[in-house]
């Protein structure tokens, strides 16, 4: 005599459970094959369950009105001879709750959680330290361990003869977080020993695009550099004051918004500077709108997000847009058109500043304006020595479009506005 378990079969179309309507057998009854055992009702239909085997009922699961999940035991039989149970789904016998019950909370058996395999070492290989052609030398044991840890030996410096990688080399590599060390100092601590490491880094992605654009600009545009000293004392005072009592939704003012407003003010007088030069057809497009590119350093490299229509933004508007586009550039959410279409570019290294620079024009524009760092220095003002806040402005112009005299006049006008910021807020500066 063997035991046969009859489970509530999957009666189709994703039905998860059924309610027992009426039993037609009791424990101890001998039933013939195909004899009706029980009526069950799902949301769809009332269905009579018939016995798949001939045998004696030894156990029944659930009374009328109970909800029984699909796959759980319904009836257990003692059958003569071998009969494998009708398990179509090896599902644990679910708890049966008395009537009337909301849909049965089948015990979400916590699947034995696979211990998460230690994520493969995501050592972002900075660079291979040997030519890709010659395979790294290591003993079978070292090679096996490295492979298990997902480390490509190509990036592991070998200290032994012929660059062979020892167990220690591998341990050091892992200890350093899977990053190739600075050129390995010779073991005797001799700082002047010759160093052999060569690191190859393929220019890809954003790095490659920056390289191409810079090369194109340098090759095609005859740069004319012009540096002028600006007295920023008055402007700095105004900036500090505006920042102190600014409304809380307004961003902190830096120098650049003032330059943006100054450029907007001068564009009508110098339209050819706010333009883009299309080389093939030899056409200069001058724009009424002033879209100022802001050179921004992101971890992937230099990006130039654009504040569009600066003519339509007041000082605070320029400041707000400036911080928005530069942040978007840094965290990679800047859209395609937020990164293109500038008519003139502002580039500032902020506090790093330097005393002067030769900025590369953001082709196909024709001018780039580069404020350097502020520094307090003694100067002669009206015959007296005075401590003033001074700043150099390094600009580059495309000499095909902007003559030297033009450039000098533009920078002089710029200086007049920046040194007397009040003029910035008048209609006709």
């Amino acid at each position, binding site marked *: 005599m063997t035991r046969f378990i*009859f*489970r509530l*079969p*999957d*009666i*189709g*179309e994703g039905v998860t459970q059924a309610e027992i309507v009426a039993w037609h057998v009791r424990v101890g009854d001998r039933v013939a094959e*195909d004899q009706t055992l029980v009526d069950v009702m799902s949301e*769809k*239909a*009332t*269905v*009579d*369950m*018939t*016995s*798949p085997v001939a045998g004696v009922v030894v156990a029944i699961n659930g009374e009328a009105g109970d909800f029984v999940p699909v796959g759980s035991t319904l009836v257990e039989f003692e059958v003569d001879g071998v009969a494998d149970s*009708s398990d*179509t*789904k090896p599902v644990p016998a679910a708890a049966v709750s008395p009537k009337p019950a909301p849909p049965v909370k089948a015990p979400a058996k916590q699947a034995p959680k696979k211990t998460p395999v230690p994520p493969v070492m995501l050592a972002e290989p900075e660079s291979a330290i040997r030519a890709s052609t010659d395979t790294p030398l290591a003993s079978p044991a070292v090679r096996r361990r490295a492979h298990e840890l997902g480390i490509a030996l190509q990036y592991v410096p070998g200290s032994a003869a012929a660059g062979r990688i020892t167990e220690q080399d591998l341990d050091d590599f892992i200890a350093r977080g899977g990053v190739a060390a600075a050129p390995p100092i010779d073991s005797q601590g001799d700082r002047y020993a010759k160093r052999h490491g060569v690191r190859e880094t393929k220019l890809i992605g954003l790095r490659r695009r920056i390289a191409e654009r810079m090369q194109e600009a340098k090759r095609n545009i005859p740069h004319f550099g012009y540096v002028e000293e600006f007295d920023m004392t008055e402007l700095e005072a105004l900036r500090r004051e505006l920042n102190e009592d600014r409304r809380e939704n307004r961003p902190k003012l830096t120098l650049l918004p003032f330059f943006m407003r100054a450029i907007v003010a001068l564009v009508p007088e110098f339209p050819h500077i706010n333009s883009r030069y299309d080389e093939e057809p030899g056409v200069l497009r001058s724009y009424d709108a002033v879209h100022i590119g802001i050179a921004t350093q992101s971890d992937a490299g230099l990006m130039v997000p654009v504040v569009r229509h600066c003519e339509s933004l007041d000082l605070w508007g320029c400041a707000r847009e400036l911080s928005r586009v530069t942040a978007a550039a840094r965290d990679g959410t800047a859209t395609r058109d937020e990164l293109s279409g500038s008519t003139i570019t502002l580039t500032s290294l902020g506090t790093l500043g330097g005393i002067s620079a030769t900025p590369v024009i953001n082709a196909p524009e024709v001018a780039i304006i580069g404020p350097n760092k502020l520094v307090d220095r003694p100067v002669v003002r009206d015959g007296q020595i005075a401590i003033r806040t001074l700043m150099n402005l390094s600009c580059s112009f495309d000499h095909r479009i902007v003559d030297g005299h033009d450039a000098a006049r533009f920078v002089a006008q710029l200086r007049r506005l920046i040194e007397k910021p009040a003029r910035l807020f008048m209609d006709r500066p």
Partner: protein
Amino acid sequence: MEDDKLSLHIPTPRARPGDPVTFDHISIPAAGLVRRPEISASEEQLRDLPYDLIRVLDPDGKAVGPWNPQLSADHLRRGLRAMLLTRIFDDQLFRAHRQGKTTFFMKSAGEEAIGASQSLALRASDMCFPTYRVVSWLMARDYPVVDLVNQIYSNANDPLKGRQLPILYSARDYGFYSLSGNVGTRIGHAVGWAMASAYKRDTRIAIGYIGEGSTAEGDFHEALTFASVYRAPVILCVTNNQWAISSFQGIAGGEATTFAAKAIAYGLPGLRVDGNDFLAVHAATEWAAQRARANHGATLIELFTYRAAGHSTSDDPTKYRPTNEEQAWPLGDPIERLKQHLLGIGEWSELRHTELIAELTEHVRGACKEADAVGTFGKSKPSAREMFEDVYKEPDWRLIEQRRELGV
């Protein structure tokens, strides 16, 4: 109702669960009254037939009237056997679903006479384009029952290699075209097949089936157009079993006219036949077949019957019609009526009937045991490589790559 305001008519059946059952709105003429025209009669002369109801067996089971096909007792007994085998098979496999041996099954309870009689009325080489309640066609042609069960279990010996839903058989050598779950889409294939036969100056004809609900599909009307235009040698049958899952035949246009009458619009003869009368169905089919073979083109036959059970294992008819409606169907049970006729002409006996039932029950149970041994659903299935075969004649690189990715 404001007189000038419009209103939307939504057809509803005479009786819903809990209502008393009545079919007196259906006019049932006595057997033998409908005339049997010449097979070459032109369609204009036949325009009364679509509204009539051809019946041969009278209430006592006597064969009366001009449509009596004068069939031999052996032929009738083969029909009875096929119908009984179908019903016993249906009940056995319906229970198998309740025991988890398959996920889906459909009975043809009440409609066994249609497939059985038409299968025996036509030739072995004719091709039938069935719906999913015409399995009696195969039973009448002694298709191996074990292969039906293997297909229902989708086990390792499933002739359709586990790819098709249970009961959606295909058996070309038995003149049984491949079934699928879409409804109405294959009646056009029957017309096409018949046109091909005519094109090749062959002698084989086709018979296509469609449920009354599915006559709403565009496919049905397009098929009738082609059958009429090209005088295709095809018999188009509407099995009007009153129900399309929970929608009664009124939702398919049955309130306004009969389904046979649709033939008139296409210049085709339309016969309306008592679908539970083995002899009437046989006679009408013979008439249509002779007409087709004589190049007089297609005939539309409405087989007026009743779907005695639910739509499928996932349907409970008591949710949308009175529980005892099937008992009240005025045209009775096809098996009982043929049995009574055979008893009447002394060619049958109650003892032989019970013996036949026992023999067929054992035959079906044996086939199920044999299929159980190979394996029921989920316990045995063909190799998963079958999933990637017969998508095209030769598998392309996508299928090869994906079969390799799955690793079978």
